[in-house]
C-alpha cells in the first residue's frame, strides 16, 4: 500500500488525496507491464470464477433480476365527440350542451375530436405492438441467461480442474526433489567393507541403554573425532591409537564394543578415501558389499578401496586435517536437510532421550540424514 510522502506531524489531506488520485491514474494508465496485466487478468477471472462465489442458483438470480413486464398504466384514450363536454357537475354539463351551438360558431371541434380519436387508436396499436416486442425480448433474454449460466459453470469447473492439476504438479515436483535429495544422502552414506572386517569377531551384546536422565544425543550433531576412539582392550591394528582416545561423550548414546568401533573407523576411513561412491560407480568399480548408514548390508565381500589400503592409520589421527576436510560434505548435507525437515529435526530431538534399541548389532553411523528417516518426514 501507498507510502505517502507526507510527514506524520504535518498531514495535509489535500496532498494525500492528490497522491491517492495519482495512484489511481497510474493504475488506470497504459504503463502496465505484461506481468501486471496478467496478474490483473488473473485476479479478475478468479473473482468471477471463484468456486466459493459461484451461485448455484445463478439462473434463478438472473430470472429474478429480470423485471416482469407490466404494461404501462395509461389513462383512458377513448375520445368521443362528447368527451370535451363531459363533467361530473350536472349543471355545468347542461350549460355546455346549451352553449354548444354557440361554441361551434367560433370553431369546429369535430376536427379536433377526430384527430384525438385517431390518436387514441394509434396509441392502442402501439401499446399492443410494444407488448409483443417485450414478450419476445424476455424470451431471448432467458436464452442469454441460460448461455451465461452455462459458461460460468463450465469456466468454474475448468478453473477448479486447472487448480487441481497445478497442485498435483507441485506435489509430484516436491516428491521428485525429495527423492533426489534422499538418493544423494544415501550415496554419501555408502561405505565399503574391507575383507579384514570378516576376521573381526562378532561384537559382544551391547550394554544396557543409557538412562533417561542422560542428555539426548543430537541427531544432527556433528560427531567429534575423539568420541569415536574409546579405549579398547581388544588387540587389533588400531588398538594403540584407540587407547589414547578419550572416553565416549555423554551424548554419544550407549557404549559400544571394540569390534563395532573398529568397524566404524574402517568405514569412515573408506569414506575418507577421496572418492565418492557415485564416482566409484561411474568409474566402473562395483563394490559388491555396500553398507548403508541404516545398517543394510550387501552379502558378497568386496576388495578394499585404494584409500583403505593406502592410509589405514589416517583415520586414527583425530586432529588430522583430512578428518576436517572429509567432514565438509556431510555438513552441507546436514544444512540441506535442516532447511527442509526442520520440524522433524525437533521430533528427532524429542525422541532421542528414549533408550536406543538394544539388540541392534551394528549401531548406525551418525551420518547426517539418518537420525530420522526422511521417508517418515514426508509422511508427516
Amino acid at each position, binding site marked *: 500500500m*501507498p507510502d505517502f510522502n507526507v510527514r506524520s506531524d504535518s*498531514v495535509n*489531506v*489535500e496532498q*494525500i488525496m492528490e497522491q*491517492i488520485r495519482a495512484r*489511481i491514474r497510474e493504475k488506470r494508465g497504459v504503463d502496465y507491464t505484461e506481468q501486471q496485466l496478467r496478474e490483473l487478468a488473473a485476479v479478475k477471472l478468479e473473482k468471477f470464477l471463484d468456486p466459493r462465489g459461484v451461485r448455484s442458483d445463478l439462473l434463478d438470480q438472473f430470472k429474478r433480476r429480470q423485471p416482469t413486464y407490466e404494461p404501462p398504466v395509461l389513462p383512458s384514450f377513448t375520445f368521443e365527440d362528447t368527451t370535451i363536454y363531459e363533467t361530473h357537475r350536472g349543471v355545468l354539463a347542461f350549460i355546455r350542451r346549451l352553449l354548444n351551438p354557440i361554441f361551434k360558431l367560433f370553431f369546429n371541434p369535430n376536427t379536433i375530436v377526430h384527430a384525438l380519436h385517431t390518436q387514441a387508436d394509434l396509441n392502442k396499436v402501439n401499446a399492443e405492438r410494444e407488448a409483443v416486442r417485450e414478450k419476445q425480448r424476455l424470451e431471448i433474454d432467458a436464452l442469454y441467461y441460460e448461455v451465461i449460466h452455462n459458461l460460468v459453470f463450465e469456466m468454474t469447473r475448468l478453473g477448479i480442474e486447472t487448480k487441481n492439476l497445478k497442485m498435483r504438479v507441485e506435489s509430484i515436483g516436491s516428491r521428485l526433489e525429495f527423492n533426489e535429495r534422499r538418493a544423494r544422502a544415501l550415496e554419501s552414506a555408502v561405505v565399503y567393507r574391507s575383507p579384514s572386517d570378516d576376521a573381526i569377531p562378532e561384537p559382544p551384546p551391547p550394554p544396557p541403554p543409557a538412562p533417561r536422565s542422560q542428555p539426548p544425543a543430537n541427531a544432527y550433531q556433528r560427531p567429534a573425532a575423539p568420541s569415536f576412539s574409546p579405549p579398547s582392550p581388544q588387540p587389533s591394528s588400531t588398538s594403540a591409537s584407540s587407547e589414547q582416545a578419550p572416553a565416549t561423550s555423554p551424548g554419544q548414546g550407549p557404549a559400544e564394543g571394540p569390534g563395532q568401533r573398529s568397524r566404524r573407523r574402517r568405514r569412515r576411513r573408506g569414506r575418507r578415501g577421496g572418492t565418492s561412491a557415485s564416482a566409484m560407480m561411474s568409474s566402473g568399480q562395483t563394490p559388491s558389499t555396500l553398507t548403508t548408514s541404516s545398517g543394510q548390508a550387501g552379502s558378497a565381500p568386496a576388495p578394499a578401496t585404494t584409500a583403505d589400503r593406502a592410509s589405514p592409520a589416517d583415520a586414527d589421527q583425530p586432529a588430522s586435517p583430512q578428518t576436517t576436510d572429509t567432514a565438509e560434505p556431510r555438513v552441507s548435507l546436514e544444512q540441506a536437510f535442516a532447511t527442509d525437515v526442520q520440524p522433524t529435526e525437533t521430533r528427532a530431538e524429542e525422541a532421542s532421550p528414549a533408550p536406543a534399541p538394544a539388540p541392534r548389532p551394528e549401531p548406525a553411523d551418525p551420518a547426517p540424514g539418518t537420525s530420522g528417516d526422511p521417508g517418515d518426514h514426508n509422511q508427516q
Partner: protein
Amino acid sequence: MKLAVVAQRYGQAINGGAELHARYIAEHLAKHAEVEVLTTCAADYVTWRNELPPGVERVNGVAVRRFRVKHERDPKLFGQRSSRVFERRHSLNDELRWLDAEGPASPALIAYVRTHQADYDYCLFFSYRYYQAYHGARAAAPRAILVPTAERDPAIGLAMFRPVLRGVRALMYNSDEERAMIHAASGNEEVPSVVVGIGSDVPQNPQPARFRQKFNIRGPFAVYVGRIDQNKGCKELFEFFQAYLRDSSGRLSLVLIGHSLLPVPEHPGIRHLGFLDDVDKFDAMAAAELLMMPSYFESLSMVALEAWGVGRPVLANARCDVLKGQCIRSNAGLYYETYSEFIEALGAIERNRWLSGALGRNGRQFFREHYDWPVIERKYLDMFDRLSKEPHPSRTIAPLPGWFARRRQELPPSEEVLAALPTGPSLGRPAGRRP
C-alpha cells in the same frame, strides 16, 4: 438576558438534526441567560400531528412553550407544490403556499412571537425552511437571529427566503460551505454572521474493549453511525464496501449503528447493531479504525465531529461540500467521489497506522478548538454582545409584495437557482462550479 429559541419540534425524544441542535443550544445557553423555547405540539416531522400537549413544560430545566399546529401536512399536496416551485416557473404566492403545505403551520406560535417579542432580547429561529422560522423571523425581525441549518437542496433557491436571510439581525452558520451558499443565494454578506456549528459531550475515556466484549466484535472495523437510509448515501456505501470485501487484502469489517430504512446486505463483513445509546456509540467509535460518512447532503455532521472528538479519522463522501470542507480544514479525514478513491482512501487509513493516528490527532485538536461546548457558547455570547453594541440596524425584512405582484409567474424554478450556486468546499479561495 432573555432568549427565545423557536424550533419546529422540541423534546427529549426528538432526535432530528436541527431539533437536537436547537435543544443542545437552548440547554447550554441556559447557563448564561434565561431561555424559553417556543415550539409546536408536533413530534413527527412528516405529519406535524399534534401529539404533545400545548402549554408550558420544562425539558432538562428549560421552559418549553408549545402551540398547536393548525393542520397536518398533506403529503400529496406538499409533493405537488414542491414540484411546482422546484421545477417550474412560479409565483411568490406559490412559494408561500408551498411553505404552508410544508408546515408546521402554527399561526398561534407566530402570533405569540409577534405580541411577546419585546419580552426577549433575542429570538433564535432554527431551520430557515420551516413555517415557524419564516413567519416568526418576519414577526420579530429586530430581534431575529437565524440558525439556518441549510443544506444544498432546492429550497434554498426559493425567492421568498431572500428577504428573511437579508433582514435578520444575525446568522449563525454551521459551516463555511453553508455560509458561502447562503451568501450566493441571497446576497446577505453584510448581515453579521459567524460559523458556529454545534458541540458534543464526548466522553473523556470511552471503552473500546467494553464495546467489543458487549457485541462480540473482533478485528478491525469501520463504523457508520446514523440513519441507514438511501438519502444518507448508505446504498452506495454498501456497494463500495462489498466490493472492498471482495478484495482479499481488505481486513476491515463494517459495523452499522442506527435505525435502518434500507435492507442491510447479509454479509459476514457487515454487521448491523441497531440503535445504541450514547455510551455504546462512543465506545464503538473509539474501537473503530475510522468512521464512514457517506451522506451527500449535510449542513453539519455531528457524528463526524464526535468521531474526531474521540480521535478517529473520517472517510467522507466528497460530493457533500460540507464534509469535504471539514475534512480539509481539520486535516482529519479523507474523502471519496468514486469507487477507486473509496478503496484507495480506505486502504490508506487501514494500512498506514501513522496516517490514521495523525488524522485522529488532528481531528481531536479540531474538535477541541472549534466544537467544544465552551467554544460554541462563547461564539453565541460574543454575537449577542456584538449585536447589543450595534446601533439599531436600518435594514429590516422587506414586506411581502402586493396581491398581484405575489401572483406574477416570474420566478425561475428553484432547482435552476440551486444549480447556479457555487459548489465545492469553502477554503478561502474561489469555489468552482459543479460540472
